[in-house]
């Protein structure tokens, strides 16, 4: 595999794993990390989080990656992947000591 591809995967996989662990722990989800597809919807259909759960997710991501998620920006919670995109876009994964687990 091309080294650049390997690098992209490693960076993303690291952020995904941390977000999934955060979700499972904070929300006591009855799933393993492998059970959670990265495109599963967090709101409505899918994990079906309510507004309190959503707040918990936002707090978890903010603390884990040192990023700020604007109040009311629920569009970021469309899926795990859209949250990951936000963290990577902010360049927060490495800054908060991220990387592959």
């Amino acid at each position, binding site marked *: 595999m091309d080294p650049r591809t390997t690098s992209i995967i490693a960076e993303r996989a690291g952020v995904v794993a941390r977000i999934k662990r955060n979700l499972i722990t904070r929300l006591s989800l009855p799933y393993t990390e492998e*059970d959670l*597809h990265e*495109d599963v919807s967090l709101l409505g*259909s899918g994990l079906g989080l309510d507004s309190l759960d959503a707040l918990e997710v936002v707090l978890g991501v903010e603390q884990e990656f040192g990023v700020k998620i604007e109040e009311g920006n629920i569009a970021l919670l469309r899926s795990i992947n859209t949250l990951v995109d936000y963290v990577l876009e902010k360049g927060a994964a490495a800054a908060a000591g991220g990387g592959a687990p």
Partner: protein
Amino acid sequence: MTASSVTPGRAIAGAVLADRDGATYIARYGDVESEVRAVREAVGLMDASHVMVFKGTVDDALYPLDEVFAGNVANLRYGRVLHTLLADDAGQVIADAYIACNDDEILVLCEACVPRAEVARLLAGCPVADVSDDVAVFCLDGPKAWGPLRDLAGRDILGMPYLSVENHVLDGAPVQILRAGKTAEFGYWIVAAAADAAKVHGRLMAAGARYGIAPYGLDALDLLKLDGRFFNVNREGRVVRDPLPLGLQWMMDFQKERWSGRDAVLARRAAGVAHKVVGFALAAGQRGVRVGDVVRLDGEAVGEVVACGWSLGLGREMGLALLDRPVAWAGLDFVVDAASGPLAARSISLPPFVPASLTVKLDEV
């Protein structure tokens, strides 16, 4: 669903009918992109005649259904709806289902990739009756889907939580309304007696006129599900039958002791999933991807296309690919081996756009 249930009153002139597993349904009314646009920007109404409907009582059917469907039906509360799946003995998905607990009645609404007889066979041990020919199901979807229903049934409609069910009366016709949908926009499923179908359809269309309503068919729904990242049992579900690579774990309760296909699914889960379905978008201006096309990464074949179509939100062709697990991540550049030649594609996060309904506050409309 039989051909006769697409009644003349509902099949608007110009509707194109199509067959699927021996059933007839409305594929489209005209331009599919216009139908998708209506749902994404205003409101669309679909005659969901393809949906199989079963009814029973809560007392008799709740626990038997719990032993067949993958989700936790037994924990379903009054007034709530469960979104789950039905698998065959081999743990292969055959239906995507809503199960609604409405007063003393339990309602099962299935979209299946097998003929009706196969679904009925799996439900044979459940005291539910197949009422598909006795009812009509309509789907009202879009950022303004609340409008026609509020005008016809009252403001209480606005307070319905997602995945809930209530009884209402639409211009004299009793209906059950489920707050549900598979387009990523606001959605309501309306179940009416077949005898009232044409009347209910007509009233909804008339009330929806001021909101820009348009009828839409299953071809548009396929595209709405694709970029809304809703599982489509009749697209990727016909290619990838295993719910694990499809990412449908959230529809299953792994703690339950019995459900159809459980042992097979749990065995595959314990062995580890080797493939995963991931979204991709073609580069701007590229077209021609087809189901079955091989997907390559750095020259190596790593998977195949399992669903595809035009995304209004992206303004380009997109699809779902079943990829080898190590490379099943968003943000990678792939090549799709299409019949017309290689196409540049990038794996993407889904849904790839912000649905308009996310910006609507129902308590302020």
